[in-house]
């Protein structure tokens, strides 16, 4: 179909202010944090589920591809329009519809950012406890479809534990609106379609509304941060804390290179050398001192060099105990840009996303370090050690053609480590375009290629014509 | 629809070249407020208004008019003739409400009264009180800005001025930071009156028990770090500050800076900010004439937007 006709027809559905085909806007909406650029014929901003349904029906009839998009902060190409189609942006569907404290849920449209949702919930003393490092941009729709996790993942897990109910539009002939799940904590009505959608990267259905579970903000949180000369000591501390039956709230680390850059470039209240380990525990106020001293002695028994303690979340924030970890990605960007040679070229900074069972953490880190040595490409690491999720970050300059090939080889090897140690290459960032190949390899490694076949059949049921976010995942 | 950006820029530049200000008002508008206050003309330290308080009522009238043109969708047609717009501006100037002008003059008089309570001795330049060029700088009219800045600075030097006391965030930022960057030989000292007042240990004459919320201007809060001074001055006069959702470094702009380029968008921004402020308290304290104007045009009847100097005057002056 002719591009102008499509734009004209869709304009009739959403109104003239809610569709754009200006060249600059198209470029802006076909890019994401993944560094992959795509292309599209229009960006459409629906305002209601009905509009989404009408758009989908039209696209089904006319074989037009649809790419749902939240804040485009994903890192794997899952939101990139792979080949011409329309981008469905949820920026204008950003209203919170209901907050129920008694029933512990919030009903919201998909476009609101997690941070803004939490600002609203904080007024009630509640929170939606999934806090990816990208909370300030990540939208509810994106977080659901990416099954995001965050620093509090050690305690609360990922999005999949916090979605009760979804309203969806599926890409069939009618643009059918589905309502799956229930507002209640317990629900056993057939297959669990809610959890099928969570993490499906917008390939099965379009999320137009979500009922999310919420939880009270803990009474108090104590935090300890320490610097270790030896990564082995740090990892042994992790394992020690985890085997002591302490319920973690946050457990995160960054390596010595990132620490060095942080101490040099950030305005921090804490200083140290070596690798940094941060542990937070949610406690009743009375128990604060006791828990802190238990943690302290565990840290000390593994040769911590400098150690900082905070008796409350405010104190921890004031000291910058959390900021230094939050800065992992920006710091890696900084280090990467310091090495840039051509000011007109871009740095490709890839944040990988492997998970291993915590018992395998030491081995994983050793293998990562030896990759760095053998490939000669610099790497920093950090991540959510509490749940075994490590983010190795590597970079190369766009114009450094010789190195690019080695770079992609190295990334393959990094991903392999996750799989081979009984974990995965994909913990919270998804598969998208970048990691399709590895998905096949991982199932091959598990001798379970049939699983992929099952997934493809599922996709066909939801999306018979293959028009919804095609080219992703497989 | 693309706004008539080029035309608006041209008008701003023409006015600054012609009358030294972005709005073509007579020089008397600038210094009339100071008549009868007995401020000395020759002084090393002067009160430098940057003419913003005086111009704001005129800007408001023009923006109101621009907004209705933008709404009527006639703008591309009407405004592609920049001259017509200048014509409109001229006619509107006559119709600018006296009350509003007087209100802004009063703000300046109160600032003078407050400064007189401190040890600082200062004068005023009357017909040589000048516009800083803030709008030229904001709009990226760098070459015109440099020319203007050179003129202003040369004149100030000729008059033997060493130190400026400024009264609004835009003028303060421009005179303190930007002139220094643009004019290598720049040597003036610049102090904001809130800093002067706050470092002077004034004793309150009256305690006022009132709840207010503060709208931090972007330039004070983020660029100049004038954040605690106004709070301290209000609190020691008994005022209870109820902080709104976004304050201090995270303050949310009033929308003023784009009032001439996109009056409708400017209004939407003001509405969002007003909503945030008025849910925390109906008494809103502003510290900038542009914030005052832009928030006032969207305020509800039960909401009260007032310049900080009026509060400070009631607290510290008889």
């Amino acid at each position: 179909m002719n591009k102008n006709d499509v734009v004209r027809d869709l304009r009739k559905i959403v109104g003239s202010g809610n569709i754009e085909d200006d060249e600059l806007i198209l470029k802006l909406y076909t890019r994401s944090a993944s560094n992959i650029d795509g292309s599209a014929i229009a960006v459409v901003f629906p305002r209601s589920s009905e509009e989404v349904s009408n758009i989908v029906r039209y696209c089904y009839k006319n074989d037009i591809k649809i790419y749902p998009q939240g804040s485009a902060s994903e890192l794997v190409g899952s939101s990139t329009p792979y080949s011409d189609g329309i981008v469905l942006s949820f920026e204008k569907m950003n209203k919170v519809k209901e907050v129920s404290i008694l029933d512990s849920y919030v009903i919201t449209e998909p476009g609101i950012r997690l941070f803004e949702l939490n600002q609203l919930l904080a007024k009630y003393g509640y929170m939606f406890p999934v806090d990816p490092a990208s909370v300030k941009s990540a939208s509810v729709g994106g977080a659901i479809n990416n099954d995001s996790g965050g620093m509090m993942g050690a305690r609360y897990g990922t999005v999949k534990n916090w979605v009760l109910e979804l309203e969806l539009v599926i890409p069939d002939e009618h643009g059918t609106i589905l309502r799956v799940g229930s507002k209640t904590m317990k629900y056993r009505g057939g297959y669990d379609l809610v959890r099928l959608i969570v993490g499906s990267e917008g390939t099965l259905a379009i999320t137009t509304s979500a009922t999310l579970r919420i939880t009270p903000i803990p009474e108090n949180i104590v935090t300890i941060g320490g610097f270790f000369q030896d990564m082995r000591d740090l990892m042994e501390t992790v394992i020690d804390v985890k085997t002591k039956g302490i319920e973690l709230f946050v457990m995160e680390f960054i390596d010595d290179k990132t620490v060095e850059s942080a101490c040099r470039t950030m305005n921090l209240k804490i200083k140290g050398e070596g690798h940094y380990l941060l542990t937070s525990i949610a406690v009743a106020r009375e128990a604060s001192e006791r828990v802190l001293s238990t943690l302290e002695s565990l840290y000390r028994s593994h040769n911590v060099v400098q150690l900082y303690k905070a008796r409350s979340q405010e104190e921890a924030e004031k000291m910058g105990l959390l900021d230094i970890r939050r800065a992992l990605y920006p710091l890696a960007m900084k280090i990467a840009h310091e090495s840039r040679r051509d000011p007109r070229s871009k740095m490709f900074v890839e944040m990988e996303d492997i998970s291993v069972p915590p018992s395998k953490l030491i081995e994983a880190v050793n293998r990562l370090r030896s990759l760095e040595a053998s490939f000669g490409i610099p790497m920093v690491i950090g991540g959510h050690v509490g749940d075994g999720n490590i983010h190795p970050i590597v970079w190369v300059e766009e114009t450094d053609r010789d190195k690019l090939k080695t770079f992609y080889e190295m990334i393959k090897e990094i991903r392999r480590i996750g799989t081979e140690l009984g974990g995965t290459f994909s913990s919270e960032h998804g598969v998208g375009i970048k990691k399709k190949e590895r998905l096949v390899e991982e199932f091959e490694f598990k001798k379970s290629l049939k699983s992929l076949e099952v997934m493809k059949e599922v996709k066909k049921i939801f999306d018979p014509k293959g028009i919804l976010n095609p080219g992703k995942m497989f | 629809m693309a706004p008539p950006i080029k035309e608006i820029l041209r008008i701003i530049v023409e006015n600054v070249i012609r009358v030294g200000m972005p709005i073509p008002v007579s020089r008397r508008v600038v210094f009339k407020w100071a008549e009868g206050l007995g401020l000395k003309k020759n002084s090393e330290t002067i009160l430098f208004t940057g003419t913003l308080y005086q111009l704001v009522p005129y800007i408001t009238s023009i923006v109101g008019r621009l907004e209705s043109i933008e709404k009527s969708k006639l703008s591309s047609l009407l405004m592609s003739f920049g001259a017509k717009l200048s014509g409109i501006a001229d006619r509107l100037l006559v119709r600018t409400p006296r009350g509003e002008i007087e209100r802004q003059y009063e703000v300046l008089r109160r600032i003078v009264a407050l400064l007189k309570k401190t040890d600082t001795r200062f004068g005023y330049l009357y017909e040589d009180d000048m516009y800083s060029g803030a709008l030229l700088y904001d709009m990226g009219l760098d070459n015109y800005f440099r020319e203007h800045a050179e003129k202003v600075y040369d004149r100030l030097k000729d008059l033997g001025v060493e130190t400026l006391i400024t009264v609004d965030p835009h003028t303060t930022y421009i005179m303190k930071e930007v002139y220094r960057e643009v004019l290598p030989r720049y040597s003036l000292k610049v102090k904001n009156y809130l800093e002067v007042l706050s470092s002077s240990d004034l004793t309150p004459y009256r305690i006022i028990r009132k709840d207010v919320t503060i709208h931090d201007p972007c330039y004070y809060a983020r660029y100049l770090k004038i954040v605690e001074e106004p709070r301290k001055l209000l609190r020691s006069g008994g005022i209870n500050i109820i902080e709104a959702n976004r304050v201090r470094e995270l303050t949310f702009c009033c929308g003023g800076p784009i009032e001439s380029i996109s009056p409708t968008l400017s209004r939407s921004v003001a509405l969002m900010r007003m909503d945030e402020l008025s849910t925390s308290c109906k008494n809103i304290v502003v510290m900038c004439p542009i914030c005052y104007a832009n928030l006032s045009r969207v305020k509800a009847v039960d909401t009260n937007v007032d310049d900080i100097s009026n509060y400070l005057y009631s607290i510290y002056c008889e």
Partner: protein
Amino acid sequence: MFGERISEEVFMRELLKCSFCGFCEWVCPTLKAEESRLYGPRGRVNIIIFAIKDGVWTDLGLRSIFNCLVCGACNTQCPAGIKISEYIRSFRYYLISREFRPCFIAK
């Protein structure tokens, strides 16, 4: 950054640090009003990149650049430390001094 000191290279050296993370958007008043990426800091930074690096420029780009409040809220959020509003302001000068036609630098 002022006047003639500004070149395509100055923009690219700094703005290519943008990782498209979008952290800067939640504080932006014009984005909140327009509910569109085009009118936020991430949009503006990338519009400048598209104009200079890719040679793509339209009237909407002009509108977005001149609708920025230069309020600086975005600067407080950028993990790459880009002084976003200063570059937007400077890009206005850049546009004006080139009669509103940005110069496309080929790779």
